[in-house]
């Protein structure tokens, strides 16, 4: 497989789809967060590939740095929320988060 733009984009697509399926099907809350990390990494692979193969240049890499920083911030807050949920309900199963059900 040659290292051209479409191959990188395919890797980014696989990462993205795996992340979305992970977010949609996992019952563990931490598993959903891992899906979010996969989605963001798929986007990062896309950014870096376009930076390398088109005249996006340095902008793609700056954007991917911002994506990394924001993903770390979001993982911290999401884990704090997950910890609070576990401390209150003694389970991390997202199917049990139905207190607000109408």
């Amino acid at each position, binding site marked *: *497989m*040659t290292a051209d733009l*479409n191959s*990188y984009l*395919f*890797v980014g*697509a*696989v*990462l*993205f*789809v*795996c*992340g*979305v*399926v*992970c977010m*949609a*099907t996992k*019952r*563990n809350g*931490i*598993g959903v*967060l*891992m899906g979010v*990390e*996969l989605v963001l*990494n798929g986007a990062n*692979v896309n950014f*870096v*590939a376009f*930076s*390398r*193969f*088109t*005249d996006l*240049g*340095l902008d793609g*890499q*700056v954007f*991917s*740095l*911002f994506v*990394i*920083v*924001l*993903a*770390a*911030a979001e*993982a*911290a*807050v999401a*884990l*704090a*929320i997950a*910890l*609070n949920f*576990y401390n209150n309900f003694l*389970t*991390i*199963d997202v199917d049990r988060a139905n207190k607000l059900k109408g």
Partner: protein
Amino acid sequence: MNGESFLFTVFALATCLSALAVVFSQTVVRMAFWLIIALGSTSALFFLANADFVGAAQLLIYVGGTLVLLVFGVMLTASGPYLKITTSSGEIVMGSCVGLLFLLVVFASLNGVKWRDPSPETITAASHVVSTGNTLRPLGLSLLGSRPDKDSTTDGDTLSPGYLLPFEIVSVHLLVVLIGAAYLARAKRRAEC
């Protein structure tokens, strides 16, 4: 097949197979392990695409920071050794079918676009920064607000804006997020009831 193609094939396969293993793992600890492999291989792909600083930042921040935080979360919310939250096999089949359809749609759309090749004048100046992988100083300068790689190609006397404003915004955002997460995850006094 030259070295770059071989290395790209190896790391692309490692990334894709690890991401699939994350989806299909049944315990969350194994998911964390496969996620570490997937993100490490993604970092190798970044190094192959001449994004040296982004690859190093991925290893430092993602693998060394965010994933360690996720493993902390896994260990703090472990619900006992005999209780496994599993998905039924019907849900696995349906999830795989939907995922495969989604992947086919994305793959067809990205193959159907003719991506623009870099124009010759930007090849000489702007993307020669990216073509060697020595991106640390241009990245640092662009985050400080100056873009010497773009200003040397434009022949007006307008300076290209850097990324100083997003940098400041992200810095304040990180501060707010850290304070918020530390407050949310504080040790609470047990309620007397």
